[in-house]
């Protein structure tokens, strides 16, 4: 593995696909955490009262447009850096992609319309907001499951994908609840703590199921994890995950506090857990971009074109991160009612 990496960095035709796979991974991870929390907030809205719904949606209001842009970037990198993989993956996932897009459209539109349409329609748009969040989360989880299973639609694979659909949805609800703990106070924060405690089980079961299933369906993944000496230097990954779960558990039971200390902890631990799970998956599938069929090196665009994009990315990405940070800083602290003035 290490020899292979060293070799990779000697040849631009090889390291460019590697760099772009890394960039795509970062974009997907940021998307999963960021849009994960705002999808999660949408999933939790049926559990809240009318005024609480308004406050919950206010907590994601300034951010959701930019959060969804990471999805466009991720699929954009797949499209521009690995065009043949983009086609292969998305035609295989044709229906869940359509369902996710429909969900995202419903959600984004209801976000605006629930507050701007006549008051009599508010219930309708609240419902559409939840439904859109649910469709987007379920279909993303389903796609994750199908991807792990190698994009073949056998009944067993579909059953597994339905399972990951539920787990990812619960996972998003968890990170949404953690976000609400950070951004709200009083009765709503109490509720959010309860939701997060409930959602943790989905996180554990989901990560467990994926960790167990992916080595079982692929001998290649099995040997990448369960052979010597890989086993040794991969050991920190599950150990750290276990530790984070314990910390997460403790932090949730230490809340709420009158001085609000530790309100950020569940979200931070949750993000760390998502990151570890993601690293594990990335390790399992490297160097494949279409599981077991197409590697990132086979699928990559011409190096000249990748160079043009890379230069732009290296200049622009720090700026994007800077003004994303600015936006989160401007709207730091507890969420308040959104006003245009």
């Amino acid at each position, binding site marked *: 593995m290490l020899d292979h990496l060293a070799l990779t960095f000697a040849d631009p035709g090889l390291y460019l696909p590697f760099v772009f796979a890394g960039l795509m991974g970062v974009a997907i991870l940021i998307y999963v955490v960021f849009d994960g929390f705002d999808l999660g907030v949408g999933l939790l809205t049926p559990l809240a009262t009318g005024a609480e719904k308004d406050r919950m949606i206010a907590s994601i209001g300034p951010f959701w447009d930019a959060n969804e842009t990471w999805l466009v970037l991720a699929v954009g990198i797949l499209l521009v850096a690995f065009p043949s993989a983009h086609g292969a993956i*998305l035609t295989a996932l044709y229906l869940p992609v359509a369902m996710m897009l*429909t969900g995202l459209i419903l959600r984004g539109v209801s976000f605006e319309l629930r507050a701007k349409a006549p008051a009599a329609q508010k219930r309708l748009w609240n419902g559409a907001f939840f439904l859109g969040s649910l469709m987007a989360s379920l279909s993303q989880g389903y796609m994750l499951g199908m991807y792990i299973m190698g994009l073949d639609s056998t009944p067993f694979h579909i059953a597994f994908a339905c399972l990951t659909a539920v787990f990812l949805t619960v996972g998003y609800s968890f990170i949404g609840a953690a976000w609400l703990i950070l951004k709200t106070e009083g009765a709503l924060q109490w509720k959010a703590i309860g939701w997060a405690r409930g959602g943790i089980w989905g996180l554990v079961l989901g990560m467990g199921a994926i960790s167990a299933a992916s080595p079982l369906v692929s001998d290649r993944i099995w040997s990448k994890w369960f052979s010597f000496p890989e086993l040794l230097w991969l050991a920190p990954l599950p150990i750290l995950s276990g530790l984070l779960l314990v910390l997460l558990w403790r932090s949730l039971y230490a809340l709420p506090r009158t001085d609000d200390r530790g309100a950020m902890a569940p979200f931070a631990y949750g993000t760390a857990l998502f990151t570890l799970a993601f690293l594990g998956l990335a390790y399992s599938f490297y160097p494949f971009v279409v599981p077991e069929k197409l590697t990132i090196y086979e699928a990559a665009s011409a190096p000249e074109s990748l160079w*043009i994009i890379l230069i*732009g990315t290296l200049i622009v990405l720090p700026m994007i991160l800077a003004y994303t940070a600015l*936006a989160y800083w401007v709207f730091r602290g507890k969420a308040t009612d959104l*006003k245009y003035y």
Partner: protein
Amino acid sequence: MDTLILSRIQFGANISFHILFPTITIALGWALLFFKLRFNATRDESWMDLYRFWVKVFALSFGMGVVSGITMSFQFGTNWPGFMEAVGNVAGPLLAYEVLTAFFLEAAFLGIMLFGWRRVPDWVHTTATVLVAFGTTLSAFWILVLNSWMHTPAGYELRDGVVYATDWWAIIFNPSMPYRLAHVLLASGLTVAFLIAGLSAFRWLIGDRAAAVRKGLTFGMWLGAILIPIQILAGDMHGLNTLEHQPAKVAAMEGNWETRGNVPLLLFAIPDEEARTNHFEIGIPSMASVILKHSPSGVVPGLNDFVAEDGTPMHPPVAPVFWSFRVMVATGMAMLAVSWFTVWSMRRGRGVEALPKVVLLVLVAMTFSGWLATLAGWYTTEIGRQPWLVTGVLTTAQAVADVPAGMVLSTLLGYLGIYAILTLAYVGVLFHLARKAAKGELLPERPKSAAAIAVVTPAE
């Protein structure tokens, strides 16, 4: 219907729905900046009222643009994998630059522009408004570079059916790009001009005499009156550029079958592709030759020049191009007549009061005329590119995905249903907001009591 035609209808439906919203936000961002700068200069509260009303429309339109735009980026893979496989080396970097330089800029500063008023210093808020407006325009620039390149490709070489970039300058400034960009940006300006004037006229008709309504109507009609002659000129130049690079498209727009001089400008005709002729022609003699070649005897290319040896037409379907072109031009002419008459009446009399009721009713009817013209223009140019996806490089049929037709049909029906509902909801909400504003319900921003501040109005 087969997968190809269903996929084309689906892509057409997605992009038609999507373009409705950017075409508003591109120019509305700059209009908002103008309102804010006028307020800063004059301290006249009615400019701020105007800003507060239209920033809500901006937020709604922007959200709809974002979510419908995400659909576009997936469509390439789900329905048109051959597109990126063949021209990904050119299309990829252009799309990447759009996402990197424009999407994040606008989306990140949108939050501050919409909700940051009380959280940041005024100059930061103004800067955020500038950056959002700039971001939307930059996004239009990149996507039109790619779209223009598909019409008039340049700066590339073909190796084994795959396009490789050789000259990025030539790719970006490809022959049709400057004309198309100008035409589309002006279209956005006109869409917003008639949108603002139309909703203001609606508020006036239901009895709202606020200064902001007067300012909105005057602003919209002046903007329209100034932009429309420029647009007609830009459109004409774009047409001449198309004649040079895509003569088959111009032949379809004119409904001209034979290459000849003294081609009439057809006002009405029913093109018949089977018989390769027109029925019920009504036209102005030699006028198309005058417009396209600046001489009555100027030779204009005909559709029969674009037929393959085996009889397969290599020109676009004639009737849709012929008719959408006429709808666009007719809408443009109506915009010219209405905006000039309105401005003339307002200058002659005492502003908005001088306008006859029928003019106000016409303005309300023309609230979304910019959408009509924009869509008709898109259909003219995009259907006019057929059978090519990238002119001379890749046909549409070569790029389509091998997805079962039934699957495409099911998603197509789903999208169409949702788009129809959402477009109706959008139009309904705009008039609802106008009605609320007319009743003074949107003005809680000059707080009179603590209770007024405590009202929960998230993302109103």
